[in-house]
């Protein structure tokens, strides 16, 4: 079963995303901070990380860069309401596959994830 890790310091966002993806047949993991997410990655690799941008301690982009070093095959997605705060160059450098705006479109989000994971 494909494993998806969602990282956001807003727990309500984590719940809403988990709710959206419930029927996709993937294992959904959540972390409330970059530090927690990195620990989880070290425990067991995931196929996709979907991360918020602005978080305490470390930005989502910095965390994704670190994940890229620790687990090069993990697909990295950024979901943010501050799309303008992130430059194209940074996204390319870190190897982010898609930037999803917040509030997100459920169908678009699922389509992107399915594209990387295949259904179920």
């Amino acid at each position, binding site marked *: 079963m494909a494993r998806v890790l969602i990282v956001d310091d807003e727990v309500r966002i984590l719940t809403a995303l988990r709710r959206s993806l419930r029927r996709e047949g993937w294992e959904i993991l959540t972390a409330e901070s970059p530090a927690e997410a990195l620990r989880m990655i070290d425990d067991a690799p995931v196929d996709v990380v979907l991360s918020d941008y602005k978080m305490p301690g470390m930005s989502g982009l910095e965390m994704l860069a670190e994940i890229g070093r620790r687990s090069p095959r993990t697909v990295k997605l950024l979901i943010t*309401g501050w799309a303008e705060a992130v430059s194209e160059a940074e996204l390319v450098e870190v190897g982010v596959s898609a930037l999803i705006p*917040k*509030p997100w479109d459920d169908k678009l989000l699922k389509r992107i994830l399915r594209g990387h994971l295949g259904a179920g």
Partner: protein
Amino acid sequence: MFQNGNGTAGRGDTFEALSRIGADVAFERVSSVADCVERASREEVDLVVVDRGGPCIHAEVLAALAAESPPVVVVVAVDDDEDDALDAFRCGAADCVRAAHDYAEVLPVVALEQIRRWRQLRERRAAHRRIDWLERYNDNIIQSINSALVVVNRDGRITFANPTAGHILGCRAGDLGDRPVADWFTGGDDGPALITRTLEEGVRFKGAETMITLADGTLTPIGISCTPLLDESGEILGAVAIFQDLSEIKQLQRQVLQQEKMASIGQLAAGVAHEINNPMGFIHANLYQMSEYLQDMEGWFGAVDGLQRAAEAGDAEAVSAASQRLAEIAREIDVDYVRADFKKAVRESQEGSERIRHIVKDLREFSHQGSSERMLADVNQCVDSTANIVWTMMKHSVILEKEYADLPEISCYPMQLKQVFMNLLVNAYQAIEERQAEGDREPGVIRIVSSQRSGGVLVSISDTGIGIAETDLQRIFDPFFTTKEVGTGTGLGLSTSYGIVKRHGGTMNVASEIDRGSTFDVWLPFKPPDDMPPG
């Protein structure tokens, strides 16, 4: 210069006689009228001597010489007619010498005297030309300078005005003569016009700012320097005023200040947008999910209806089939989960909308209380509503601590005080962010403390940011001073804040230590000045 006429007779040699003058005068001999006139027009020639040419020749020479030519001394032969000498004077000769026995002594004296007079005359002419040139030069400057220049007499009437003065005063410079300067320099609430004070008290002003009133009643800001005109005894004769129209500069200043305000507001707006965006995000997703749940439930409700109809009809077989269908659907859609999660989604969305409502309430509190009204206001409320808004942009990296004492309301411009607090809080946040950018992962702390101190209200805003270098500390309230990256700050935030606090009769102080953080103290008196300007 020496014109040796034809057919002259007489004793002595004129050239030799003139040579006795000395080495500082050189003579040259020419033998035709044309040559003589040509040579006399040269700069270095100081004297023309026509030597015994007879009435025709000296008349011809004198007529041919230009008006400003050097003087001509005519030498007449001793046996010539007396009238010849008279005639020479009539034709314009400067002097006439008869070639008599003492001629060798007389001629050098006469020649020298003429040369001396001529040189004096030439110097005077040159001096006049220089004066004329200087006058034109000064006049050109006065006429063309970009500053207005007005001279007034003791009665305050204009005796001179340049075109720029006419331009600023809305009148042709030529029409300003004798007009009372008080027509424009009316003075105001802050006393008589500066130029009046210069006339009456002899006070000098340099680079003062004031307003003039134009004929149509509009006020124009000007920068003015006034100097009294004094006679030898120190008595005031009048005054000279030089002034510039500051309308454009004032307009630019307002624009820059507005940009500064907009820069802070832009940052705030981004923070607030982000803060609203999060709950919006999950409310949006939850609504979508709830509509999916409802779609699932449609089938379940349909099955419930079917069961009810079967029960009402009393058809036991149909009831059994319907209840089986209901159970199938319930399994299919996981009805227990859907019911529970639907409730949860509603609850979470309500909480999200409550958060948005709260942010909007903070925004309204921040912006309420008229934009420029002076009123009694609670400084705690000013700083708190500002902090609540500013905090939305910094909640990820900053812990905000508040400690408010009971404060009496003070008369102030609340919106302006909020602008001060906003500047200080945004600066504190940026100082913490810079420290974090250098690798510090600890959240920063901003601490707001209010208290009553020495007949006023003291609000201290401290941060644990990067601090301010000692060399920068004395300049941070200067306009346009900034250490922030280009595009981040205009360098006007603190100078504007300082201006606002000062207008409120208060003081603003800073203490800072590199890598430890800064504390800004804003003190506002309980009783601010009555004539506190709105800004």
